[in-house]
């Protein structure tokens, strides 16, 4: 195709997608940002008449951002993200290392590892709520009488356990895919050089699987920052100990507090965008230094 006709073809083929994204993503994004500066409802005008409508509110809707409820939700969101993503990385890498060695029963293992991923989050929430009942199986096994799903610090732990169960296998799958790209010769070379398994892991496996791992972590970070259904179902809406930013936005929106809900939504969007930007910056730099280091090593070995 000539460049000109291929440009037209691209425009024609991409326009339905761009139209859909404009409708379901860009319009809401812009509308939410605008809404976050407006207030609606009833008020008295200068002559004392009741008028209905919306008016510019400046930063009034953002005032809630420094108040206790928002800060608590931001703290919960951050805590869940940091703890679950860290646990998932450790568990996921461990799972991937085991699965790489699995020959017999591999299909069975792969099927079972997909189960937590396939269970809808709302169903996973109910399932763990049942396990964590006061007279449920978790307390029976642990010999405790903890009220896991009542509002309180234990509820945080329950959410973390349930979320880690659901997503660690997914990280394991992605890391496994990264592991399988590493050529066997690299390990043979390490063996010949007399590396211990621990050294092999830190100096060979981890650096080589890092690109795949970082991408998996980025995806999980973005997902964890918008967590909503798991705490909603497992503990309940409007529960202080597990209310996340998405939960807070949902609650304000369903109470028709559109202004504050939009302000919080905009804040969450900025939070996620900043984390993604910082992460990609670090990841990009990391990948580059990785490539450079490997090239240096290569030339050193040749020299």
């Amino acid at each position, binding site marked *: 195709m000539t460049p000109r006709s291929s440009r037209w073809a691209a425009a024609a083929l991409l326009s339905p997608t761009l139209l859909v994204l404009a409708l*379901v*993503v860009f319009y809401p994004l812009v509308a*939410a940002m605008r809404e976050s500066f407006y207030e609606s409802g009833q008020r008295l005008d200068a002559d004392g008449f009741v008028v209905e409508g919306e008016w510019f509110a400046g930063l009034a809707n953002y005032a809630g951002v420094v108040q206790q409820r928002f800060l608590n939700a931001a703290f919960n969101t951050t805590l869940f993200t940091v703890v679950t993503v860290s646990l998932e990385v450790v568990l996921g890498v461990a799972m991937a290392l085991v699965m790489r060695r699995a020959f017999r029963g591999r299909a069975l293992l792969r099927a*079972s590892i997909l189960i937590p991923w396939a269970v809808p989050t*709302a169903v996973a929430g109910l399932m763990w709520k049942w396990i964590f009942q006061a*007279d449920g199986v978790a307390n029976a096994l642990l010999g405790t009488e903890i009220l896991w799903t009542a509002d309180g610090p234990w509820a945080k732990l329950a959410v973390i356990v349930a979320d880690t169960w659901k997503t660690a296998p997914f990280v394991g799958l992605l890391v496994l895919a990264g592991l399988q790209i590493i050529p066997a010769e690299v390990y043979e070379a390490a063996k010949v050089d007399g590396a211990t398994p621990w050294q092999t892991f830190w100096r060979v496996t981890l650096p080589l699987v890092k690109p795949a791992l970082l991408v998996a972590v980025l995806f999980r970070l973005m997902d964890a920052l918008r967590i909503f259904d798991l705490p909603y179902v497992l503990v309940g809406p409007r529960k202080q100990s597990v209310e996340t930013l998405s939960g807070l936005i949902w609650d304000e929106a369903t109470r028709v507090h559109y202004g504050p809900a939009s302000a919080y939504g905009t804040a969450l969007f900025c939070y996620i965008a900043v984390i993604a930007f910082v992460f990609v910056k670090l990841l990009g730099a990391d990948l580059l230094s990785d490539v450079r280091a490997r090239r240096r090593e290569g030339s050193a070995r040749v020299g």
Partner: protein
Amino acid sequence: MWARAGMIGIALYCLVPFYWMVVSSFRRTADIHDKSPLPAPWSLESYEAVFAADLGFGQSLLNSLIVAGVTTAVTLLVGTLAAYALARLDFRGKNVVLALVIAVSMFPGALLIVPLLELFTAIGWINTYQAMIVPSMSFALPLTIWNLTAFFRQLPYDLEQAAMIDGCTAFAAFRRVLLPLAAPGIFTTAILAFIATWNEFIIAVTMINDQARQPATVRIAQFTGAAKFDTPFGTQMAAGVLVTLPLVLLVLFFQRRIVAGLTAGALK
């Protein structure tokens, strides 16, 4: 040796909580709190309760099927065209479009709900299927495009060129040569999009308050027991098994493809 122990450990980690849900769903209401590893006796009481007319669970499964099915179909139609352009055509701004698509997939659903709630209220879409289908495309479409672009790129370019040299138009080459080759990738993407939409929660719980239109994920969380503050766990577990069953079957049949699709979408 430790590899085998590790494998068993992973399988237990993944399956035991799920197993507990399945086992609990087969207990009688009277012995739902038993901790025995197998129900004694086995009972379908909870499953009968799930399909009691007043719960509307059958309808909610149908709603999920309609929403996930239509979203998947529309998304594939739109996404295949875009993926073809991104994988095969050369044009300025291609990387911008790709970056845009991936940025959109990281968009927080909570931010969509206020403007869409207002919009859908204004145009009378509250409690309709399209109120779930259209917003669901915001995450199904990026996933589809990303997967299919990776897939189309793997296919040899020569075949289409040969077809075009033989007199096919670009569109005919796409339809008659590339599309059949891409069928497995499209199928895999369809499964992933279907599962993602089937699991959707926040949009549905916001836009739908009429029980008759709720999808299963939302309906099941709102089951109430006979007594007001009594959570009907047996019924919920049975419903949970039924909501998960289609996905588990898909996973069991197509695990190889699903893994390939997941890793392609995330890593390439």
